[in-house]
């Protein structure tokens, strides 16, 4: 043990920490024994202050990951995400979101029609052309007025007539989209198709299980030629052609919320450069439109309430 009086250790310790009064400091500095003790305590302090060997990166990352996982903040975020997902699933947004995706494509029209000669039976095939120019330059106008398939810019679409959710299902099937670089050739093909004069009858045949028609794949960005008449385009695409079983001319029916979606697109699509559709879980779709590389619009469409909820990308 040290011969120093413990009370003097207290004095010396405070002195080396700069916490001693002037009188105390003077006393230490004037006493060789106290100065020596101060050096001893400084020596101890240097050892305690010596850097420790830190754990390796793997241990460090494991510690941080475990702490993050234990955080109630992280738990709240997870819970919120789960609530949002549950809520989203109840929104039944798939149909309109997918339809919007097609609108943004500025061309394809998905037809729902019964094909009595379809050997594929219940197979559902949806396809769409990318012939935006042909479609947009078409003076024939609103499909509601035209009321016929010959005014549509689609290549083909064959649907299971028994599927009451045909629009909702067909649009996701159309879920956007060949890669952008592949769009042009498909447009050529589509142009050829729409040039057919007797589109009414022939188109019906084309709609039936045309497996060779371009299939749209989800999560693919498609470049979209600027539409010239969003109202016209949206109105047409938000409708579906229903071919009666008796062979009479198909009629066009609007999907729910068509007017809401159309109005929304009027403000958006004039500047649209491209879009993508995210198939979240097979029942929910998120439409993302690009107006510029850094200007992205994201919207969720709620069919149940006919509302459009713009969202912040990544938010």
């Amino acid at each position: 043990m040290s011969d120093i009086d413990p009370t003097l250790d207290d004095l010396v310790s405070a002195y080396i920490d700069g916490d001693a009064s002037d009188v105390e400091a003077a006393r230490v500095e004037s006493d060789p024994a106290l100065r020596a003790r101060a050096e001893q305590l400084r020596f101890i302090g240097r050892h305690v202050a010596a850097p420790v060997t830190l754990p390796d990166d793997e241990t460090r990352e494991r510690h941080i990951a475990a702490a993050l996982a234990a955080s109630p903040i992280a738990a709240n975020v997870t819970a919120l995400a789960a609530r949002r997902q549950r809520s989203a699933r109840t929104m039944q947004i798939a149909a309109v979101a997918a339809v919007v995706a097609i609108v943004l494509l500025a061309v394809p029209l998905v037809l729902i029609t019964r094909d009595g000669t379809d050997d594929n039976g219940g197979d559902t095939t949806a396809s769409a052309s990318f012939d935006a120019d042909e479609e947009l330059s078409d003076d024939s106008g609103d499909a509601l007025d035209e009321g016929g398939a010959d005014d549509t810019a689609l290549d083909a679409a064959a649907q299971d007539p028994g599927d009451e959710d045909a629009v909702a299902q067909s649009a996701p099937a159309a879920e956007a989209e060949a890669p952008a670089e592949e769009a042009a050739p498909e447009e050529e093909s589509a142009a050829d198709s729409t040039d057919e004069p007797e589109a009414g009858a022939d188109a019906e045949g084309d709609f039936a299980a045309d497996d060779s028609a371009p299939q749209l794949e989800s999560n693919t960005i498609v470049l979209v030629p600027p539409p010239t008449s969003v109202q016209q385009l949206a109105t047409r695409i938000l409708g579906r052609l229903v071919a009666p079983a008796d062979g009479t001319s198909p009629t066009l029916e609007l999907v729910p919320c068509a007017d809401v979606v159309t109005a929304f697109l009027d403000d958006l699509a004039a500047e649209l450069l491209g879009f993508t559709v995210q198939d979240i879980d097979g029942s929910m779709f998120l439409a993302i439109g690009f107006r510029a590389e850094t200007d992205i619009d994201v919207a969720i469409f709620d069919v149940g309430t006919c509302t459009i909820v713009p969202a912040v990308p990544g938010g």
Partner: protein
Amino acid sequence: MVEAAQNGDRAALDSLLRRHYDRVYGICRRMAGNDADAADACQEALITLTKRLDKFDGRAAFTTWLYRVTTNACLDELRRRGRRPTPGLPESPEIDIDDTPAFDTAVSERLAIDDALAQLPPEFRAPVILRDQLGLDYAEIAATLEVPPGTVRSRIARGRARLADLMAGNHDDPSRRPSTESP
């Protein structure tokens, strides 16, 4: 960053943990006395930190609160294990093959300080570590440990004096382990 983390910003929380990790581990390493216990104590401290972050009200400096949480987490961990810190060899010593004697000396001194610190009761060990390793002043240590500044000054002095005695004995003969008698 603290406020963002409190508001649920996971990235901010991640950054906060990374920013203070070394200091948290440093406290735990000195408190625990060996790498294995230090790693466990550090883990507990970080988990406690994240669990109680919403309790931090900003009245004290965040680092003060952080050190308090860390110190208490270390003490709790050591108490849970029911034993005093056990000095040990570093698990990953940075060996310089061209300077073996220096390494030997460094390891010896490190063992000595670890062993000496292990002899101190926690109420003396904590203020010495907070003062000498982190450089906190008496007021900050008092706030961290929630004891009066006068008590901090006294405990640091007694802790250092005990360490000096233990280290001096160890330095007389490096092969001789320090006494394990209680202070």
